[in-house]
């Protein structure tokens, strides 16, 4: 055997008392040693003179970090990106987040501590250790109490340690060697076996998640979430007298902070309403987005009246012509809100701000593509006078 291949000297003891004595003795002189026992021996920390572990600080830091991230994520998703009132609670419903924060702290604290142990301390993907497969390991995992001192320890001296262990009452003392291939082992993340294994696990997980979410959840008896004893919209109800399971708000109900649309003819809308928005870049972008979504199927992408509906419906008119250039914003607004002829109203789909933005966008298209309309000074003045009257 070559000297470099020696990993440690190990000794086996028969009783917990003798291993305590040995640990106490060895720990005064050596740093790189460890004790292995079949069960936790009370008081061993003191005998080995271990300082309190600092892993707790790692665990709490990572736990609190992930908790803060989770809190931010919940804030962002529930009150910034997709604000939605749930159960009458505020968008930032802190008490409801607390259980999640609590669980996340514990989950990430525990899982990432273990992950750190495996990756940093055990140098994952390495999964070998000189103690594996040794007689020593077999003995300490059944009925013996073992201690070993690593050859790397600065005070290491084989024959001296052998004597010391014997004096402490060891029932056997033996050297532990590295396996040949372990000596020069370097972690290799791109080891084909490891890579294939990882990919395999990824595929398996994705597949099973896919099956669960798309198939299993819809199969008897796992579909109890999907098929519940409740009224779905459009179903007839035996409970309500009118037979509808979908309920309507009582007549005259107005949502908080919402003033209902109050004009019943294009003329009054045209007379009393002014566009409260400014055609800023942001506003026009919004208008474009909404126009392309809601209006372009009939009126064409550039409001040129080119329908994509392949004759299933009469196409909407070209909105850039002089006729529509003379429309007031209020009149446009009324059409979008209430519809015209075959064109449906968009009151419930498009918000007010979006409606005005669409109008600004249509105006831009008119300027860019329409035949220019020349207005006289008086006309402009007259127009603005009526508006000021209306807004007063």
């Amino acid at each position, binding site marked *: 055997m070559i000297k470099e291949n020696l990993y440690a000297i190990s000794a086996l003891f028969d009783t917990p008392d003798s291993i305590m004595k040995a640990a106490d003795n060895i720990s005064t002189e050596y740093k790189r040693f460890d004790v292995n026992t079949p069960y936790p021996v*009370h*008081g061993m*920390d*003191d005998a080995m003179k271990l300082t309190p572990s600092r892993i707790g600080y790692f665990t709490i830091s990572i736990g609190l970090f992930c908790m803060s991230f989770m809190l931010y994520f919940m804030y962002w998703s529930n009150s910034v990106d997709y604000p939605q009132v749930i*159960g*009458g*609670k505020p968008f930032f419903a802190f*008490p*409801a987040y607390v*259980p999640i924060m609590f669980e996340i702290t514990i989950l990430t604290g525990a899982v990432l501590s273990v992950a750190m142990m495996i990756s940093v301390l055990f140098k994952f993907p390495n999964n070998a250790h000189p103690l594996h497969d040794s007689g020593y390991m077999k003995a300490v995992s059944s009925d013996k109490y073992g201690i070993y001192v690593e050859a790397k320890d600065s005070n290491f001296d084989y024959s001296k340690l052998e004597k010391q262990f014997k004096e402490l009452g060891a029932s056997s003392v033996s050297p532990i060697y590295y396996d040949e291939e372990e000596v020069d082992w370097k972690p290799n993340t791109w080891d084909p076996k490891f890579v294939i294994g990882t990919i395999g696990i990824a595929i398996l997980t994705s597949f099973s998640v896919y099956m669960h979410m798309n198939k299993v959840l819809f199969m008897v008896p796992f579909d109890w979430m999907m098929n519940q004893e409740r009224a779905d919209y459009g179903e007839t109800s035996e409970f309500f007298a009118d037979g509808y399971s979908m309920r309507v708000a009582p007549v005259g109900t107005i949502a908080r902070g919402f003033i209902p649309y109050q004009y019943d003819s294009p003329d009054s809308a045209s007379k009393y309403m002014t566009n409260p928005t400014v055609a800023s870049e942001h506003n026009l972008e919004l208008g474009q987005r909404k126009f392309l979504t809601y209006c372009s199927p009939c009126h064409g992408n550039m409001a040129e009246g080119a329908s994509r509906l392949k004759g299933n419906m009469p196409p909407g008119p070209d909105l850039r012509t002089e006729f529509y250039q003379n429309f007031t914003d209020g009149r446009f607004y009324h059409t979008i809100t209430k519809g015209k002829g075959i064109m449906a109203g968009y009151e419930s789909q498009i918000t007010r701000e979006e409606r005005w933005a669409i109008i600004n966008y249509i105006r831009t298209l008119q300027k860019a593509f329409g035949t220019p309309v020349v207005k006289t000074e008086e006309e402009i003045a007259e127009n603005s006078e009526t508006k000021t009257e209306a807004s007063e």
Partner: protein
Amino acid sequence: MGASITVEYVKKALPSGLIKWSSIGLIVGLALVIFSATMDMQRLAFSSLLGYMFVMSIAMGALFFIALDHITGSIWSTPFRRIAEILTNAIWLAPIMAAPILYNIFLEMGGHGMFDMYHWTHDAVVAADPFLSQKAPYLNESSFIFRTVLIWVLMIIFKFILVGNSYKQDKTFNHKTNKVNAAFSAIFMAVFAVSITLTAIDFMMSLEPHWFSTIFGIYYFAGTFACIVAMITLIAVNFNEKGLMIEGINKDHYYSLGGWMFAFTTFWMYIAFSQFMLIWYANIPEETFWYMPRMEGTWAYLSIALIFIKFLVPFGLSIQRPSKTNPKRLKLVAMWIIGAHIYDIWWVSYPTYSHLKETHSPFFGWQELGFVLFAISAVFFVFAIAAKNKNIVPIGDAKMERAINFHL
């Protein structure tokens, strides 16, 4: 069987300060209590609620600690069990503490209550209120008094069995006693669970008889257990520093005591938050109205303070490992937790008093301080008297030898 002396223990005199300071506190406290009784009986009754719930926490909590030690056969807690056993004498104080409340309820039976405290004691109100008349079979004066006295009697019976056996064991060294006590402890556990729940419901929850929370008994229990462990820790650490405990109490024992305080501080928060969150989430008026006054005006700050006082401060003070073995820190945390428990009881019960006074501002004055001082000193005083001729550790216990060699 094992009739041999296995541990060395010498009984030493109690520290003189204990009896001196507790009697001074007792006299001052009593003077304040009597003075406040002459001024305002209603306020006295409310402040006595603080004293009563605290004393019951000590008395019932101590019995629970003892039963837990027997039933689990735990090793580390055995040297401290005697302190809990002596603390069970606090049960004798319960009738004194509850006297103002019970006397008034007794008078209400004849319809002539001196003051207004429990809404459900007024017959006219109950008759007019469908909720209260539904609850009347449980919530009426005679059954309230009956339950309260029954709980005292049960506690006293179990005190005589569990504690008496343990005292006897000091002389007989009979190891079979442990088995007998374990069996009685098992019965006690069931009795305890019901008793502490009913105590919490009767005295604190029924202040707002319309309100109900199914977790309320556990809420009080969480505070109770933190409080009793804190009390035991406070006494044990002080005694150990003066050499009154047995040789062999080491930092692993301390760690276990500190661990319990830490655990039940957290457990209290868990329960308190569960209660709050479920009520907040369901948002049903008949449940939320209990929290509403506690979230308005000054009470809102006091409620936030509760989170700090009862949870964050003791949690922060004892989360690190060394802080659970440091005697100074342990004493500090223990005193803090006892105070926090009383603050918690105050927070639960006093909004009702503010409500009766038709104001939103809280009441805390010398009347309350006086009664709390009275109750705490009384507990220490009774402890000092009872501990005079008793060993401070159960030397006859079969587990003692292993207990003093306890290592984590």
